[in-house]
């Protein structure tokens, strides 16, 4: 099997929260069914959410998925 290309998922959640009237991590967590700590972990790049959760986050901000999450190779 070929070795996967190095890289990581980055996101714009902090910026999008700021633009959404400084939405708190807890508020975002409530809207997507996650704890504040999980939102903080996603935001800090310490946890990569499932595809479903990523779509839910993008839906909260009214953005397409690739404006919220990007692959940084």
């Amino acid at each position, binding site marked *: 099997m070929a070795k996967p290309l190095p890289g990581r998922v980055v996101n714009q959640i902090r910026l999008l929260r700021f633009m959404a009237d400084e939405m708190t991590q807890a508020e975002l967590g409530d809207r997507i069914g996650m704890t504040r700590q999980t939102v903080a972990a996603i935001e800090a790049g*310490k946890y990569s959410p499932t595809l479903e959760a990523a779509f839910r986050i993008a839906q909260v901000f009214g953005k397409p998925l690739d404006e919220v999450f990007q692959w940084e190779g």
Partner: protein
Amino acid sequence: MAYREKTAWLTLGCMLVAYAIYFSLVLSGHVGPRLLDIIWTFGIIASIQAILVIIGHVVLALSSGAEGRAKPDERDRAITRRGRSAAYVVLLTGTIVVGVVMPFSDPAPRIVNTALLAIVLAETVSYVLIIASYRRGWHG
């Protein structure tokens, strides 16, 4: 610190203290060789540990407010699965040692205590991984 990380610390701490006491008693010869002696001593220590963990969970849940009442989310579940998967390997190894190797060479009390040790080690690995995953991040 996340509520579930706190409960993992609590469970791990209580477990390590409780079973350190139990295995110290076993190694120092304070637990008799009969099965009833082992069950009695282990039962008392396990019951005290369980009561302390339950009380601790209630206190943590009350002091954590809504977070303490919230169901585990996908990250919590992924972290728990990771801990359980590693614990399964430890428990499986322990089961092979206890059930396949030791019956040919060791007396019954040692087999029983080794089985209990395997369970404690498996749980310890599970909670250590859970705590490490909360602290250092989880990339599933």
